[in-house]
């Protein structure tokens, strides 16, 4: 749904998209955006280079030789022209009252050379004067999976994306969206904003915070232009929905004299960390952590407490899963007496154990009704807030390859349990010696929104960060 009245609304919900200056043989930007046309959007090209036009029209996209010829209002333009041409294109976009444009064009201030800095200054002044929504330059621009506007040919087209993602880096924006999709998570809206000469992270963040289709916000930032505004917008956004902040690079300390002890202790990273806690953001250090946290936020029930029930397949893994969750700050308490009474009726303690953690392979022996029975008992246990369960690829792969229906029925059981239970659930399967097979069966889990992790530590970290966020 749109955020009526917001300056970025038309650009984030485009009906007409124009690709300016795309080139063969690949015609990357037109290819990226063909889904927009297939979904009923008006996709046009503006290109004056005669030798490119035939190739563009062969893709079924109407080309215009002048911006003014494009029918109807332009909601978003992808600008992929040489840098010295970019001010002329911007002038045309402003004159035609376009609602926004992503400048893929690079070679500006990021080069450190005089001409690049001068051209960037020129774009900045023009866009600011016209209050023009310039995304970038030196960026991949917008990715709007629902309408089919894309910044990469592998990026998914999806109607039900819930993550709004913002990235200072084009690579991280693309990679986050691809890896998220590979984990069963889709994006609502995404902006890669590069040099951020007009619109900065706060502008996009403000929109995503108000956008009903965005349930969770993630971002990759290296620095922000207006620190006070970012603080205010982030605090407001965090009050509305979870915001995961992946900060890259070292903040420049900047030259400043300090006459106080406090000033000498106020390292940029320490101040940043304090601000993150003050806003209530969830912080991560890399792509994997960011995806891991997103899985908990979007694929589990709300994390309300830190008392784990741990379900492992063998004795050794029972110790390891407990170590990982205890180190991440979780409690692994005794179950209630009622739980022990009920487990005692059927649990096989020879080669197993029904303390917490449960060492359960010998008891379950492939019978899903037994696994189900354990879940139902633990669901009623007042000492338990969350579950983490181990699946063993080392022992399981040989059988699942022979009898895929065994794996499928287990996934059905887990899925039914997750639906039924109010307690969050995470699943861990270390690929062991079966990396290829583990990768092959992963979609079976992700397509059912089962949060699957390759290590106890990653699952524990993700759950711990969301727990800290919930109780903040």
């Amino acid at each position: 749904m749109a955020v009526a009245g917001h300056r970025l609304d038309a650009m984030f919900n485009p009906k007409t998209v124009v690709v300016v200056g795309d080139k063969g043989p690949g015609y990357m930007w037109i290819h990226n955006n063909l889904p927009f046309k297939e979904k009923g959007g008006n996709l046009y090209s503006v290109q004056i280079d005669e030798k490119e036009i035939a190739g563009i029209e062969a893709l079924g996209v109407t080309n215009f030789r002048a911006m003014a010829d494009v029918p109807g209002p332009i909601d978003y333009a992808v600008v992929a022209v040489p840098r010295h041409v970019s001010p002329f294109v911007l002038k045309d976009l402003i004159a035609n009252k376009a609602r926004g444009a992503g400048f893929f064009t690079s070679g500006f201030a990021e080069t450190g050379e005089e001409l690049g800095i001068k051209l960037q200054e020129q774009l900045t002044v023009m866009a600011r004067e016209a209050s023009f929504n310039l995304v970038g330059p030196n960026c991949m621009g917008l990715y709007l999976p629902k309408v089919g506007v894309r910044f990469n040919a592998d990026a998914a087209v999806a109607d039900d994306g819930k993550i709004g993602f913002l990235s200072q880096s084009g690579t991280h924006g693309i990679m986050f969206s691809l890896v998220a999709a590979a984990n069963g998570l889709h994006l609502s809206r995404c902006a890669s904003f590069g040099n951020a000469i007009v619109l900065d992270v706060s502008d996009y963040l403000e929109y995503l915070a108000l956008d009903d289709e965005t349930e969770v916000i993630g971002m990759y930032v290296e620095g922000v232009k207006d620190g006070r505004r970012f603080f205010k917008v982030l605090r407001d956004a965090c009050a509305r929905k979870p915001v995961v902040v992946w900060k890259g690079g070292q903040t420049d300390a900047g030259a400043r004299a300090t006459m106080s002890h406090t000033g000498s202790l106020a390292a940029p990273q320490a101040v940043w960390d304090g601000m993150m806690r003050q806003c209530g953001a969830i912080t991560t250090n890399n792509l994997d952590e960011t995806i891991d946290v997103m899985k908990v936020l979007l694929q589990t029930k709300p994390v309300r407490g830190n008392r784990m029930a741990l379900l492992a397949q063998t004795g050794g893994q029972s110790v390891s899963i407990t170590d990982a969750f205890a180190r991440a700050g979780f409690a692994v308490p005794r179950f209630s007496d009622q739980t022990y009474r009920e487990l005692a009726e059927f649990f096989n303690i020879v080669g197993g154990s029904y303390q917490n953690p449960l060492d359960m392979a010998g008891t379950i022996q492939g019978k899903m009704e037994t696994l189900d029975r354990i879940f139902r008992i633990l669901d009623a246990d007042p000492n338990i807030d969350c579950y983490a369960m181990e699946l063993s690829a080392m022992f399981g792969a040989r059988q699942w390859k022979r009898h895929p229906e065994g794996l499928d029925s287990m996934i059905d059981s887990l899925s039914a349990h997750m639906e039924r239970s109010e307690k969050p659930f995470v699943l861990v399967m270390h690929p062991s010696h079966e990396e290829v097979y583990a990768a092959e069966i992963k979609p079976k889990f992700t397509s059912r929104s089962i949060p699957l992790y390759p290590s106890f530590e990653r699952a524990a970290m993700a759950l711990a960060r969301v727990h800290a966020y919930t109780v903040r």
Partner: protein
Amino acid sequence: MTFESVLAQARAEGRTLLNEVEAKDVLREAGVSATATELARSRAEAEQLADRTGYPVVLKVVSQDIAHKSDVGGVKLNLANKAAAGAAYDEILASARKAEPKARILGVSVQKMAKPGTEVIVGMTTDPQFGPVMMFGLGGIMVEVLKDVSFRLVPLTDRDASQMISEIKGRPVLDGFRGQPAADVEALKSTILKVAQFVEKHPEVREIDLNPVFAYPDGAVAVDARIVVAES
């Protein structure tokens, strides 16, 4: 004295550093608990102020050019009577002049010796990107060596102040250990919040150190203070 008059005086003298007496005056006016401190410009004045304050007293050198007062022999603690206070005045001036011959020395501050408490630091600095930011930490080794401090941007909510105190690694120290009584965390919170409000009200303030603040089972008091203001 009001902040405005202290600021005007400092600017008239081309200073950006408010001395201990000035800093405590303006902070006390803002409701921050700090020891009452007065300036003595002569030995006789020091003796008179010590008598009026009540013993034991503390004397410290007051100079915009001396950042670390104790390093130059500029601090005398636990002075029990008039004769000791008078002698301390002369000793402080002599040793500070010897260590820092070029320092402009305004005089000596006189204050009642506060009873010892758990030492903490409450500070503020101006971040180039995020503006005014508050800091809290435990005094001594925890802050000097381990840099165990927490930060929040101004303005602060009640919860921000609570979290600043609770998130430092040395937090259990405030609960009391080895016979030390527990510190009044509410009083520390109030100190942080009042300093933050003072900063909000006076954008000219660039940096503040309340170092140390003594935390007691009931209450907390800043026994040294420094404020840096922006150049006019």
